């Protein structure tokens, strides 16, 4: 079946604007993850959803970041009042459960001017 999809693939925005990034996980996967990958850096864990619930939001970098998941499927990562340091590739992954294999989407490259 289809893999994890993310949209948009690229987003260029101006400092101070809000952005929404979307993730469509593999059907039937209850676990969903958001990561941030900055140039030359490893993947930074942002948040994990089990179903529609996020047990731990402490990985979100600031209160400008929020995420939700509806219907146990699609997830949206919202960044308010974007800053230049938010520029990165945002990756989404899904799995059957938290210790199972994660399947990653292609990512959204965010550039904040």
């Amino acid at each position, binding site marked *: 079946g289809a893999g994890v999809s993310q949209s948009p693939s690229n987003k260029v925005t101006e400092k101070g604007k809000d952005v929404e990034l979307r993730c469509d996980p593999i059907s039937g996967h209850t676990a969903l993850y958001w990561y941030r990958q900055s140039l030359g850096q*490893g993947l930074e*864990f942002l948040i*994990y959803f089990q179903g529609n619930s996020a047990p731990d939001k402490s990985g979100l970098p600031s209160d400008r970041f929020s995420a939700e998941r509806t219907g146990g499927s699609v997830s949206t990562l919202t960044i308010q009042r974007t800053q230049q340091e938010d520029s990165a590739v945002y990756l989404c992954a899904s799995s059957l459960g938290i210790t199972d294999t994660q399947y990653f989407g292609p990512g959204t490259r965010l550039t904040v001017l």
Partner: protein
Amino acid sequence: EDQVTQSPEALRLQEGESSSLNCSYTVSGLRGLFWYRQDPGKGPEFLFTLYSAGEEKEKERLKATLTKKESFLHITAPKPEDSATYLCAVYTGTYKYIFGTGTRLKVLA
């Protein structure tokens, strides 16, 4: 603080020249160690999961091993198509995965 360190940062090999990548970790309790391959402009692709010291897994030219302090990804007789960034990650049971910064591998024909 839980930490994952990968070495070397970059590695250039001639085709057929075997080598190993290292992933060392300092965590409170390891529930799983994962290896991924990432090609430019793409998301990571799963390779292996290791759960306990002494465990080994193989796939084609790759073999992953695990001790109580580190994991190795051995690449035997690599080919140019093995060129990629190799990432390791650990899960400690706290809803978070901790990734290393990766090893960029370039295999020359």
